[in-house]
């Protein structure tokens, strides 16, 4: 009996459980009723979801969401899709009891493909919808006709209908509500509800970029800036900079297409987990970039380590072809000076070292100032200035003429008397000048190690810049300092004699070669006409200086006229002239186009980029010793590598930005991109065939695998 009862009891329980189970299924069906059937294909799965299971009495609004799940590799678009693309659209006609439906847009991500900027979503996203009812508390029937565009390697438009009925009733679909709330949180806030404040929005001086400045009490993390000016205005990739505390943001967004008849502009700033959208008014005063980069403060140890590298780099600069001729000037002056006291020799070399340091300090101060006012600076860019190159050419040409015996640089009689009487004070001025010249001429030779040090300095604080440049100067001045410490080294040099004439001619020849190089640079910077004009003026200058017994005042007038004409001539009539480049039209080098690099790499190509300039002697050495020699030349020409050359002889913003992006401020700069190294393998300043081939192999790894 008992057993029978127990069996009955368990049977009953089983029935009960079954019943509950069925109810559970029913209940879960009721829960699922808060979402529409889904539209699905490989690109996207879409559903309409609702936070409420039913319309409560007196409820005037409902929280809805368009839940989208993009397939792998597919993406969809934000309300402003970017350069091209289409934002999702929902047509609600056919719905009943719907007064309005407002689509909210969670903060987008930036997609960049082949230089085209797009904003949107990938993976999962829910677009929250704020719906208002015609009649509060009455059932809602939704018919949403959705059009959206998805792109992977093909752009597929979708046009589908989703329907959802919400009867009268209570209850929250917690799952849907959570999803909607989650994504509603990612919808950019209004400025009042955020500590991000946009302080300035202005067009830059050339109307080619939008500048946005914003501040935030909480430090910025991963920031992006999306301006919206309506469908006809499009922007490129922003240059975003943060200050050291990461609480101030400066962004420059290049304008790709512009019209005055734009919609009411707004700017959205997205940060790691927060975002704002604020309406903006353009002001006419664009603020300059305040920060060079968002690098954190470097430790003292690191600064010292980099200073050591800079010292070594400076020392090596002495044997670079640009500085060697200047050492030669110094050498001849020592050889000529007979009977100098130990003290005089020591002082002379100390003054030369001081000359080197003075230039380096002046350069550092100028760089700090330029950084402070927001100019992008680089090592050696003064060689992009025609006036500077002109002056350098004239100075070197006159020195060469002097060494080759065209004339003697004589000091005024009064000074000569004093010279004879006391110490060689005027001689010290020339010693100082020698050091100065050596340092000036060293700048276009970015020696090994120097690139790293200068890059570090230019990205650091003013103090970092000073420390590192001083170390660089000390390295460069080391030969002078060594002789200053042991002046007797000079006495070990051979006694004066006829052989000195030979040395003089040899060194004069070296200087003449330097002058020829500078003239070549001038042709690139200012044009062949200017170079011819400057050479003529320099010739007149040298002839005027070498005519014996000419009227002193007439000579001075001619010399000054030559210098003034040269300076103004170079500044005013310089015209870009690239006839030299045209000669190479048939070469394997392509013009530099940074936007194409990503495209080529995505196609499996390997790209070799060579940033060079006429004034960069190290670049020339790299070219003739490595790049234009087999096996590297054969590899670059073979068709498996795309070789791009960026000519920085004259200022070029795109090249400067490219260098800056790779944390370089000077050239030569060579970098290899490829499937194996999409963000590039930077090569050392001085190339070796092994380094180039190794980088090419590593970058093209994927294509090697495929072969």
């Amino acid at each position: 009996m008992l057993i029978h009862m127990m069996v009955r009891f368990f049977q009953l329980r089983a029935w009960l459980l079954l019943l509950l189970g069925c109810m559970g299924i029913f209940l879960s069906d009721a829960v699922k009723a808060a979402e529409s059937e889904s539209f699905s294909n490989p690109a996207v799965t879409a559903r309409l979801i609702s936070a409420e299971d039913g319309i409560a009495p007196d409820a005037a609004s409902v929280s809805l969401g368009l839940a989208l799940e993009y397939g792998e590799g597919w993406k969809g678009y934000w309300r402003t899709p970017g350069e091209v693309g289409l934002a999702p659209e929902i047509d609600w006609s056919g719905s009943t009891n719907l007064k309005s439906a407002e689509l909210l847009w969670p903060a987008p991500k930036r997609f960049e493909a082949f230089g085209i900027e797009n904003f949107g979503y990938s993976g999962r996203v829910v677009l929250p919808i704020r719906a208002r009812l015609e009649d509060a508390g009455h059932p809602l029937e939704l018919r949403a006709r959705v059009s959206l565009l998805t792109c992977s390697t093909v752009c597929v438009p979708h046009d589908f209908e989703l329907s959802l009925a919400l009867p009268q009733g209570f209850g929250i679909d917690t799952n849907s509500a959570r999803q909607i709330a989650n994504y509603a949180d990612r919808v950019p806030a209004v400025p009042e509800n955020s500590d991000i404040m946009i302080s300035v929005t202005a067009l830059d001086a050339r109307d080619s970029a939008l500048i946005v400045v914003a501040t935030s009490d909480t430090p910025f993390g991963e920031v992006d800036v999306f301006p919206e000016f309506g469908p006809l205005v499009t922007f490129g990739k922003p240059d975003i900079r943060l200050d050291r505390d990461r609480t101030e943001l400066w962004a420059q967004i290049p304008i790709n297409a512009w019209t005055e008849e734009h919609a009411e502009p707004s700017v959205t700033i997205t940060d790691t987990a927060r975002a704002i959208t604020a309406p903006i008014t353009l002001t006419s005063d664009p603020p300059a970039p305040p920060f060079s980069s968002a690098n954190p403060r470097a430790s003292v140890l690191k600064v010292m380590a980099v200073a050591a590298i800079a010292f070594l780099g400076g020392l090596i600069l002495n044997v670079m072809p640009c500085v060697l001729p200047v050492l030669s000037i110094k050498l001849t002056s020592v050889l000529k000076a007979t009977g100098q006291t130990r003290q005089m020799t020591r002082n002379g070399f100390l003054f030369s070292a001081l000359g080197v340091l003075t230039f380096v300090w002046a350069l550092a101060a100028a760089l700090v100032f330029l950084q402070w006012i927001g100019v992008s600076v680089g090592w050696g860019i003064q060689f992009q200035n025609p006036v500077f190159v002109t002056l350098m050419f004239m100075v070197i040409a006159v020195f060469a003429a002097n060494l080759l015996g065209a004339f003697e640089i004589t000091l005024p009689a009064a000074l000569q008397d004093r010279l004879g009487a006391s110490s060689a004070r005027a001689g010290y001025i020339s010693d100082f000048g020698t050091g100065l010249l050596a340092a000036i001429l060293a700048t276009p030779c970015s020696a090994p190690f120097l690139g790293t040090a200068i890059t570090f300095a230019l990205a650091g604080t003013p103090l970092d810049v000073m420390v590192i440049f001083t170390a660089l100067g000390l390295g460069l001045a080391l030969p002078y300092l060594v002789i200053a410490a042991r002046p007797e080294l000079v006495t070990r040099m051979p006694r004066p004699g006829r052989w000195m004439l030979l040395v003089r001619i040899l060194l004069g020849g070296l200087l003449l070669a330097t002058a020829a190089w500078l003239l070549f640079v001038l042709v690139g910077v200012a044009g062949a006409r200017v170079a011819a004009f400057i050479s003529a003026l320099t010739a007149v200058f040298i002839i005027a200086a070498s005519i014996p017994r000419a009227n002193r005042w007439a000579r001075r007038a001619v010399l000054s006229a030559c210098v003034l004409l040269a300076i103004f001539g170079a500044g005013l009539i310089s015209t870009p002239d690239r006839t030299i480049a045209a000669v190479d039209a048939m070469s394997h080098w392509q013009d530099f186009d940074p936007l194409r690099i990503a495209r080529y790499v995505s196609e499996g190509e390997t790209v070799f980029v060579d940033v060079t300039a006429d004034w960069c002697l190290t670049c020339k050495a790299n070219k003739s010793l490595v790049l234009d020699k087999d096996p590297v030349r054969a590899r670059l020409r073979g068709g498996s590598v795309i070789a791009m050359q960026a000519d920085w002889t004259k200022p070029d913003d795109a090249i400067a930005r490219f260098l800056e992006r790779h944390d370089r401020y000077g050239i030569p700069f060579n970098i290899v991109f490829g499937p194996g190294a999409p963000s590039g393998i930077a090569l050392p300043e001085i190339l070796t065939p092994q380094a180039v081939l190794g980088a090419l192999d590593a970058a093209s790894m994927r294509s090697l695998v495929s072969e």
Partner: protein
Amino acid sequence: MDSKKRSTLLTIGVIIAGYAALRTVPSLLPEKLELQALDRPEGFRKFVAGETSGGFDPFFGLGTADSTEVAAQKAAALERVSENICSALYGGLTPTPTQVPMASFSDYYCPFCRVQTKRLADMTSEMPDKIAVAWHELPLLGDSSNLAAKAALAAKRQDAYVAFHERLMTTPFQASPEYLARLSDDIGVDSKKLITDMGSAEITRELEDSAALARVFAFVGTPALVIGRTVVQGQISDRTVREIIELEREEGWRDVGTAA
């Protein structure tokens, strides 16, 4: 315990590595010229690029809820192009025996089309003896696409298709009369004629033909290409395009077309 932990870690590591290899290795391999013969249209074959092979409604935007009149027009267009697919695809071209004809289908609002049309144009000027391209407008992305396509075809009537194309590919399009007038001035065409032509039956017919061709080839989106008798959906690398061109040249694309 330790060795157990180690082996667990090892297993997890192997699984992760295996997964990573599975995910990355196929993408590291080159795109192979995997070609699949098509039943319809006969004589053509499809380049199988992978992802976009199935699951889409291939007739999107090609008229599902049209009025009877529009549906009839579309049916007529379908019949028209089906009669001689090759002449519909490459009608405007007179390729030399060494040239492979190519038909490009694009939309101004599709990001990849910008890139692909530019690259195809570059490729054509690079090897004019090997390829000739017929440009088809396939505006699938709404009204703006449609207007841009019509304007491009109208510009073609004044021999300014390439200039117009280049201009559109760098700026967004707006079809207001002022914008079109300014654009016409910029590219040196008669704006009145451009606007009149945009509404012409001839251009409507050309767009209908392109849409019908897209339907014949079951294109699900843009960009799309037909190189000789090889059908390609989506953006592919220059290298693959060149490989297909070479293959077509070797095999002689001229054998096709008569079948349809």
